[in-house]
């Protein structure tokens, strides 16, 4: 029985790949073939759908918008979370535990609850339909997450490191940036990975906060699906392209994913 144990993960991975295969298959077909016949492999292989996406600014603009706010959000979240996580892991201060729990409660807030007030808030301060608005809004759940992950990694670093550096006369920020952050580089990578992930996959808030100029790719897809009727090939191609940044990022952190999870975080 032990010899066949690999079958379970293998079957699971096949199950995971099935919808992705179908998506790719459709993305290389033309509309006639999609609607007119049922083929497991494109009979007429076409790159027309992809060409359309790369030449139409409303399409590729969507990718640029998404990548823009995701990167902005990831950088902001990690940068502000670093000192905060350090404070939580090293110091005791008034209300620290409550503050930590309050931060985590924001991870539990359903985006649907915040959709309408966010719309009003960001309209009121004139940020509606900008990438900055989405990047800021996603801080709601990504900053608590980054603090949580980084705090876990930092608590694994012995305090003697800090004490030695301070005895040697390092000013706090120089120690923090030159010595401490490189020590937890893996943690920074894992935190950035999860911030990227949650900002990249979220749509409800991103869609609520944008209309034309900063529309994310995922929202562009929704519009296409409803207005231009049955352009399923185009929809499939756009979907297939949204998988690429994620796959790219996973590849880079593959050795750290398990380690990040091992801390019992996320």
């Amino acid at each position, binding site marked *: 029985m032990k010899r066949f144990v*690999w079958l379970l993960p293998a079957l699971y991975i096949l199950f995971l790949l099935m*919808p992705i295969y179908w998506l790719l298959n459709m993305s290389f077909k033309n509309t006639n073939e999609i609607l007119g016949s049922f083929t497991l492999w494109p009979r007429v292989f076409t790159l027309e759908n992809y060409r359309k996406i790369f030449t139409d600014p409303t399409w590729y603009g969507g990718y640029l918008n998404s990548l823009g706010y995701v990167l902005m959000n990831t950088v902001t979240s990690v940068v502000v979370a670093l000192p905060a996580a350090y404070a939580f892991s090293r110091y005791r201060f008034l209300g620290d535990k409550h503050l930590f729990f309050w931060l985590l409660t924001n991870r539990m807030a359903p985006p649907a609850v915040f959709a309408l007030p966010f719309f009003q808030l960001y309209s009121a301060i004139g940020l509606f339909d900008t990438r900055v608005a989405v990047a800021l809004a996603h801080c709601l759940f990504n900053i608590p997450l980054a603090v949580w992950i980084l705090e876990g990694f930092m608590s694994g670093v012995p305090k003697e490191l800090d004490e030695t550096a301070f005895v040697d006369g390092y000013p706090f920020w120089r120690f923090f940036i030159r010595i401490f952050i490189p020590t937890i580089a893996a943690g920074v990578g894992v935190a950035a990975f999860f911030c990227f992930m949650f900002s*990249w996959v979220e749509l409800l808030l991103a869609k609520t906060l944008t209309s034309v100029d900063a529309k994310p790719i995922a929202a562009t897809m929704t519009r296409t699906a409803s207005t231009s009727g049955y352009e399923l090939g185009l929809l499939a191609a756009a979907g297939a392209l949204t998988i690429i940044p994620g796959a790219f990022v996973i590849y880079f952190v593959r050795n750290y994913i398990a380690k990040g999870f091992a801390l019992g975080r996320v």
Partner: protein
Amino acid sequence: MSTKTPNQKAWWLVVPVVLLVAFNAIVPLMTVINYSVQETFGENVFFFEGVKWFEAVLHSERFHNSLLRQMLFTGIILAIEVPLGVAIALAMPRRGPWVSVCLVLVAMPLLIPWNVVGAMWNLLALPDIGLLGRSLNAAGIEYNYTRQPVAAWTTLIAMDVWHWTSLVVLLAYAGLSAIPDAYYQAAKIDGASSGAVFRYIQLPKMKRVLTIAVLLRFMDSFMIYTEPIVLTGGGPGNATTLLSIDLVKVALGQFDLGPAAAMSLIYFLIILLLSWIFYTVMTKGEAE
């Protein structure tokens, strides 16, 4: 664990985080609370209404039904994803070249935008041109998820299992990788069966990560919106109208601000309460 130094100046390190999160959390929350106690007839004229909306929501059959559907959904996916995830993590290779391959492939669904997940399953399940829908119908099983409530539910659950079991797998796998080899060798010397190894070594070591897995899956499935709205749009009828979908319908569809706000708060409180229970159980387990 090293002890922490008391230092009130540490607040300065936390200030940016507090400001950014508070900006996003407190202002909108105040807005919601404000709406939840007022009535408006348009033109920005509001009247104080007290707890009327809360009573209305708590007594409305529509809310009860959404909540019941939500609990059913969360219950089913937890019952499937947690054991399945643990079983897959146990069967995954522990070392060698296949580890990276497995991890990367398993993590894939987690990084696909949620509406793309919905669209993908849509394309897969379309009764006439989707791989799954077409195959089922060809096999003689009548299947149309846009018309049959049962088919819609099955597809929704299959989609969620597809999308999120990987999270449980990765967490459980990480818990398993943290077990030193010496434990297994000791078990081997004692002649322990694989069942006993699971019960007395692997399960206790995974307890912490599994609690987190259950907590995360509970929270996220309770908030699920994008995938079902793309796949079924809450239909057929109201069959798959989960809490978030219902809330957005009331808030942005009908623009009933009062009831929507009251519903938001009740919704948020339910999640907070249940998560707090998990949190307490978790920290209690650590203290032991």
